[in-house]
């Protein structure tokens, strides 16, 4: 027995501060989340990234599955004695209830129905299913494309438009960023041209390039190219002048200075610019695809909306998001391997400042 007593006291002693420290850690945890400009640990970042997708999904689910939140329409399941009601028709709730009241007053059979959302807001599970079933939805006409054909055509359009734009835009941007001469010579016009909306050139492109994919690629080119030159020129101009001076004192001049210092110094930022510009190219895709003959994913979306298959419409829009977001994540991940010196540089920078 006497051996037990010290054990008990020791637990009593340790338990008191442990609850205190628990309070303190929970306070600290709260501070960790809301610290200003303070990066969160990896696990928390992942949870928050998940939550950023979950929150809108929960909202959407609530609107779709909880009838009392919105559901402004009633779908008739049993017409009763109302002569113009048919099974499956949908009408505003107020109209439906007026008919119910009227039938009750006449002592005839009232109609029955369930509350539903409008057809343009399908429930999450139906859209989720459509991600698969949209690929299985056969085109109505034999010469119309399947979804995967539409998608691959869209991706090809983006690819060629962005590639052509980059092949000319990146070198020009570097030239403008590196040499004041080229900047003064080209940037005023590009600055002007950038304000001309790319879709405005739709008719011209079709007149010049025909109705196939060429005008669509041209629209994406016009949409990205001018921004690209300016954005990359600015990035190149932001190269730390101390690095350039250091290279000059090591004997680098002229074109060598551009190739061996200015380009590599701005390469990681150019890569980031390109990722952002690729996102813009996707927004121009939808415009480009209605130029001339509608094609690609836009064609699919328009057709499905016409047939009121809104779950397929949402799925197709979602696919654009997934492809865009996915390719960006892929590029970010690849960037770590292309630029090994950047892998830890953000933390290194914060530790030196």
């Amino acid at each position, binding site marked *: 027995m006497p051996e037990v007593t010290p054990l008990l006291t020791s637990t009593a002693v340790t338990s008191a501060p442990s609850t205190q420290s628990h309070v303190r850690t929970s306070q600290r945890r709260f501070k960790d989340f809301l610290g200003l400009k303070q990066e969160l640990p990896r696990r928390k970042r992942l949870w928050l990234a998940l939550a950023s997708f979950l929150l809108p999904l929960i909202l959407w689910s609530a609107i779709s599955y909880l009838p009392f939140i919105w559901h402004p329409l009633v779908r008739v399941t049993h017409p009763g004695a109302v002569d113009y009601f048919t099974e499956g028709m949908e009408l505003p709730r107020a109209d439906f209830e007026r008919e119910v009241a009227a039938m009750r007053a006449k002592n005839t059979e009232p109609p029955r129905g369930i509350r539903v959302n409008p057809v343009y807001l399908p429930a999450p599970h139906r859209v989720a299913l459509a991600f698969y079933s949209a690929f299985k939805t056969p085109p109505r006409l034999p010469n119309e494309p399947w979804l995967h054909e539409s998608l691959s055509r869209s991706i090809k359009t983006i690819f060629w438009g962005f590639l052509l734009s980059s092949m000319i835009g990146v070198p020009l941007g570097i030239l403008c960023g590196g040499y004041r001469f080229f900047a003064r010579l080209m940037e005023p016009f590009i600055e002007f041209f950038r304000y001309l909306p790319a879709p405005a050139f739709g008719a011209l492109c079709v007149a010049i390039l025909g109705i196939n994919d060429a005008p669509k690629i041209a629209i994406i080119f016009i949409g990205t190219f001018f921004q690209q030159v300016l954005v990359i020129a600015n990035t190149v101009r932001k190269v*730390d002048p*101390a*690095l350039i*001076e*250091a*290279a*000059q*004192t*090591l*004997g*680098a*001049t002229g074109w*060598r200075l551009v190739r*061996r*210092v200015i380009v*590599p*110094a701005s*390469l990681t930022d150019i890569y980031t610019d390109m990722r952002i510009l690729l996102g813009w190219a996707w927004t121009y895709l939808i415009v480009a695809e209605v130029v001339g003959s509608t094609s690609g994913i836009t064609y699919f979306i328009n057709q499905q909306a016409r047939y009121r298959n809104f779950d397929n419409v949402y799925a197709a829009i979602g696919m654009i998001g997934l492809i865009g977001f996915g390719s960006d994540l892929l590029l970010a991940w690849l960037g770590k391997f292309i*630029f*090994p*010196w*950047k892998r*830890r*540089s953000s933390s*290194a920078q914060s530790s*030196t400042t």
Partner: protein
Amino acid sequence: MSQTVPFAIQPAGVVAHRFAAIRQRPVILTVRDLEKNYHAGDQHRTVFSGVNLQVHRREFITVIGPSGCGKSTLIRIVAGLDEPSGGEILLENQPIIGPGPDRGMVFQGYTLFPWLTVKRNVMFGLEIAQRSSTAAEEEARSWLAMVGLEKFENSYPHELSGGMKQRVAIARALANSPRILIMDEPFGALDAQTRAQMQSYLLQIWRKVDVTILFITHDLDEAIYLSDRIVVMGTNPGRIIEIIENPVPRPRNVQQFFSPEFRALKEHLELIIHPCVAATEERLPLARLAHAGDDVE
């Protein structure tokens, strides 16, 4: 100039002989009547004028002075990164036009190329000079060994500490075999211990390598510990106030910080620099504070 220097800090004995020997050496750098002005709109500002200096081969010169005296501008002009408004600078009797590999520079900020490994950073100048890659690599390795970083040749700059980065920067500048190494407060961003270590490294390297060093600092101890001669610059207008021959004998060590000649020289420098510092300081509106004190009473 030496007339104004008190007797206690005039080089004597071995040190005096050393300076006599230095004066016999060929002149590497000549600065003659150098002047730098800035024009911003109607504003006309003289950074410095009438700067004259002769640097002999393998001399270690430090330049000190309060901020605004133009010491950074002076060495930027020597490096070719800035242009003088008047006067001339000759490097081995050739006028300086623009930056070049004959004048290496180590900056205060870290200017290693972050996309290159340590070895490739040191090879940079050699590759620009179109040395064969095997020769450049070998040379880079030996310079890294000289600064004690041969084990880090494949690291990237962001993996190194501040002191290590500056050692690589020194190796990179020296790999070009410059006639003169220009250092603009290279250890200013380092902590006190690392700085002391770097100063001792630099002296060791300088002893082994045939290079003249022009070193800017605002740390008087650093200036005395490292230099042969100390150039003291003043402000309003920027000018050279005094060029002092450092009486502290070589080889230098930390104990000398407490030697009489070291302390006498430091005191002398403090007394020259301090009025210059006072001249650059703005007068604070202290009248207001006094007024607040009256209210409290």
